[in-house]
């Protein structure tokens, strides 16, 4: 099955091509379009599963070696680059050499790409199915699925490519599809703006990524992962503050990752990207594309682990992003905005894990996050669908009764993200915090842990708030619009509902919308009664309801939710932490099935200076009792020597007082469970038990509330510092062009005209004058003579003729005569 993995990216592309090129012309029906799209992704998923199975567990398993399709000939020379000079880096500076850069188009199946393949195709399949229900009735149905298929192709190229340039192609491809899909409702100004913002912000990151690729090629003379990493592992480790070539490459890569994964300076595009349809938000802006940065950092972990500086930068940026986005998430009212900031925050957690050297745990969190965040986004989509495109949580509440499937599946996502044992989020998030506390890769691990723990509390709090405002409490959608801030969305819906615009576009997207002339306001008893008794008639139609009473979504939407809910509940079991070794009997239970063991072959070990664990390392689970201390030593004291003294280490300090590693781990687990509990309890207190408290505390912490509500004015700052300054620069350049450049041209023109006037004057008055004077003189002199000849009398002319004849005769005979 391995040799057919080239079909995995190709099938969605074919599906996208069919839908995109023929869907409009041949007027495909919605089931046909959906069938093509879902079918192609489902096939990809099946192939992926089969390939990963045979790669990892089949009879002739390739694991842990990477499998390249070029081994079976399914590749081609993509860029026959020829010779490149390699003159960077320690070795090459001593002896510059030439390398043959032939970039091939081949796919690589290894532990990392296999996980991403399964996430992308598996979660993608759920979301595709959901989208067939959610996008029902949209005018651009075929377009939507063409873009989605194209996205799947690009994302799979990104994670399956065997070299940096293929990753870059996929990287740009997903950026393009993200742009297209955010701007799917291109008739809406904010969607168009958001798509441009996403694209331009990503350009900043792509710039860094491109520079890093150039650096890789100039340093290693190859873009192929295998070549690059085999060379890179022999480079010396660059300690804190030392900027060697690998640090610069890592910096470029991380700038790229920041752009794609919405880390702190470049996070602004992701919340705005929620202007796209909700399945897009789930697939691209939660589950897959935004984790491309994580994929890249983990893929290049050799390079990152060579630069302690960049590890620290990654960890601190991740921690800062986590707390930053989590605090914003607390005050947002748009259900998708809350989830968007939650995504940014969770991505921060993942980078935190990478920064402290726990790359496998970062990928683990990518996986669990893909499950529960896709679940919650789809749940939010279901809510929005059921609420007739109402996104403001202040207009929701009590939906538990109306949307039971959505509610219970959402509940699974909520528990997972809060980090409640044994839901999936707990395993990954707790492990990240533990690794942060016990890291020997970087200093300041305790700070990262502290920030992460606070962010985890915030996460639990705002997710509980979301649950409470959406599914519990009073059914606020039945209220009449009372005016004021809380009703601005409702009031604007009232305005927009009457606009002609909506009549032209039957479903204008994820925003409050109403039919033209529809009555928007308190639901009358008879309407409510009608919906209550005939609600099932409307189910599945989705749009066109008269009243605001929500309804459960069709099966095409809640079945994917259920699948993802199951994954969100049990998905974490592949990564049970070492703290449970007394229960599970192994540090990494499950052998290769455990995600850390599975990923070990691609994680570089700075102590042994080799890629971890071929067969036998963690396979020898029964002897883990003896292996564990050695492992601990490798990551502990020995690691400290590799990265120097990293200062205060929280986990080690605790361990010194408890004298037990296991007890220390359990202390941290209990701490993370307690903070999750605190967050949930606070959420219940503020939004369920004492709903008035939220307003009171918002008033008491007014400055903080305002700052968070306004997203710390980052957008405004960028608007001032970047957009305005760019426009100023543009104006300055324009002024230069219009004043200086045009001035020179116009000045030259004026000079030319002046000169030509002078020359013209000379010509006219001097040259012409001379000619005229001479001509006139000659004419005056000669004219009487010739005028006299012209008598006008015929006979004069005849006489002249005769005289001439005579002369001619005389001349003719003159020779004879004289």
């Amino acid at each position, binding site marked *: 099955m391995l040799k057919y993995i080239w079909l995995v990216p190709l099938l969605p592309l074919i599906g996208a091509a069919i839908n995109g090129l023929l869907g409009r012309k041949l007027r495909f029906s919605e089931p046909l379009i959906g069938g093509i799209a879902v079918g192609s992704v489902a096939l990809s998923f099946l192939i992926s599963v089969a390939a990963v199975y045979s790669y990892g567990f089949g009879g002739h398993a390739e694991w842990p070696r990477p499998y390249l399709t070029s081994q079976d000939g399914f590749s081609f020379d993509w860029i026959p680059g020829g010779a490149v000079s390699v003159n960077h880096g320690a070795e090459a500076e001593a002896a510059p050499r030439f390398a043959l850069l032939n970039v091939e188009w081949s796919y690589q199946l290894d532990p990392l790409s296999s996980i991403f393949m399964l996430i992308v195709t598996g979660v993608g399949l759920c979301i595709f199915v959901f989208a067939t229900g959610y996008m029902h009735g949209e005018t651009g149905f075929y377009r939507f699925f063409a873009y989605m298929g194209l996205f799947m192709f690009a994302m799979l190229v990104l994670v399956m490519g065997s070299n940096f340039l293929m990753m870059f192609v996929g990287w740009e491809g997903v950026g393009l599809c993200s742009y297209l899909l955010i701007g799917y409702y291109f008739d809406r100004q904010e969607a168009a703006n958001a798509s441009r913002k996403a694209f331009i912000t990503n350009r900043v990151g792509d710039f860094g990524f491109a520079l890093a690729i150039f650096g890789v090629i100039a340093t290693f003379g190859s873009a192929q992962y295998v070549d690059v990493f085999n060379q890179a592992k022999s480079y010396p480790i660059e300690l804190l503050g030392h900027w060697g070539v690998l640090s610069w490459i890592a910096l470029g890569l991380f700038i790229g990752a920041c752009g794609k994964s919405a880390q702190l300076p470049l996070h602004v595009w992701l919340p705005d990207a929620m202007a796209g349809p909700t399945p897009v938000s789930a697939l691209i802006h939660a589950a897959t594309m935004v984790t491309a940065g994580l994929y890249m950092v983990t893929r290049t972990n050799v390079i990152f682990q060579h630069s302690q500086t960049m590890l620290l930068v990654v960890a601190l940026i991740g921690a800062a992003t986590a707390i930053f986005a989590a605090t914003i998430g607390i005050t947002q009212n748009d259900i998708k905005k809350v989830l968007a900031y939650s995504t940014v925050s969770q991505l921060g957690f993942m980078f935190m894990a990478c920064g402290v050297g726990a790359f496998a745990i970062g990928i683990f969190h990518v996986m669990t996050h893909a499950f529960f965040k896709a679940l919650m986004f789809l749940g939010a989509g279901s809510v929005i669908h059921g609420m007739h495109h109402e996104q403001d949580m202040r207009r929701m509440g009590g939906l538990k009764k109306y949307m039971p499937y959505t509610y219970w599946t959402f509940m699974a996502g909520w528990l997972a993200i809060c980090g409640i044992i044994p839901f999936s989020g707990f395993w990954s998030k707790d492990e990240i915090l533990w690794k942060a506390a016990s890291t020997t890769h970087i200093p300041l691990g305790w700070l990262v842990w502290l920030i992460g723990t606070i962010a985890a509390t915030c996460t639990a709090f705002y997710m509980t708030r979301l649950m409470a405002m959406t599914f519990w409490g009073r059914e606020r959608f039945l209220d009449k619009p009372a005016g004021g801030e809380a009703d601005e969305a409702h009031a604007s819906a009232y305005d927009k509902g009457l606009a002609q615009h909506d009549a032209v576009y039957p479903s204008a997207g994820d925003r409050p919308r109403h039919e033209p002339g529809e009555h928007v306001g308190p639901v009358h008893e008879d309407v409510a009664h009608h919906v209550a008794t005939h609600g099932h008639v409307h189910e599945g139609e989705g749009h066109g309801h008269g009243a605001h009473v929500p309804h459960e979504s069709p099966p095409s939407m809640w079945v994917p939710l259920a699948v993802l809910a199951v994954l969100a509940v049990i998905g974490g079991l592949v990564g049970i932490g070492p703290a449970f070794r007394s229960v599970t009997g192994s540090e990494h239970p499950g052998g290769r099935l455990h995600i850390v063991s599975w990923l070990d072959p691609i994680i570089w070990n700075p102590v042994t200076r080799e890629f971890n664990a071929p067969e036998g390392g963690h396979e020898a689970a029964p002897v883990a009792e003896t292996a564990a201390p050695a492992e601990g030593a490798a990551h502990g004291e020995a690691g400290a020597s590799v990265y120097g003294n990293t200062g205060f280490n929280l986990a080690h300090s605790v361990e010194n007082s408890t004298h037990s590693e296991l007890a220390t781990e359990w202390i941290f687990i209990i701490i993370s469970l307690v903070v999750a509990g605190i967050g949930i309890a606070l959420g219940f207190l503020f939004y369920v038990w004492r709903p008035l408290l939220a307003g009171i505390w918002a008033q008491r912490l007014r400055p903080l509330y305002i700052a968070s509500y306004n997203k710390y004015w980052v957008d405004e700052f960028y608007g001032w510092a970047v957009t305005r300054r760019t426009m100023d620069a543009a104006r300055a350049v324009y002024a230069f062009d219009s004043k200086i450049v045009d001035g020179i041209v116009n000045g030259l023109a004026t000079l030319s005209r002046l000169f030509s006037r002078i020359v013209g004057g000379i010509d006219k008055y001097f040259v012409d004058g001379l000619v005229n004077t001479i001509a006139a003189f000659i004419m005056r002199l000669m004219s009487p003579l010739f005028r006299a000849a*012209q*008598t*006008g*009398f*015929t*006979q004069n*002319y*005849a*006489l002249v003729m*005769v005289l001439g004849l005579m002369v001619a005769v005389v001349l003719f005979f003159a020779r004879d005569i004289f």
Partner: protein
Amino acid sequence: MIMFNLISPTLAFLFQDAPRSGFEQIKYSAANPDLAKFLVIGALLFIIGVAGVLTRRNIIVIFMSIELILNAANLNFIAFSRYLSLTGDPDAIAGQIFTVFVIVVAAAEAAIGLGIVIALYRNKETIWIDEIDLLKW
């Protein structure tokens, strides 16, 4: 006197080689003219025509003088034609054909010229050529 001085040698030339004297001589010469005599008469006709063209004021008379010039040419053609036929030239007939052409052209010319004269008279109410100096302008 001048005219006489010109004409008398001409007449003498015309009748010079008469073998007999008196009237007989004249009769003989008229009956057997030689080429030179025709040429002399043609030249006289030509001169008379030219003089007419140059001196007469009436356009009609000028036309008549032009006819004289043309006929002088015709006479030359005929004379040479006959002379050459006597010498046995097979192409001698060309002179006579040419004469026919000249007569045709002269007829056409007369028709057009008289038309012009009529038009001229209608516009200027004169056919005196010294009153017509339009060519000057």
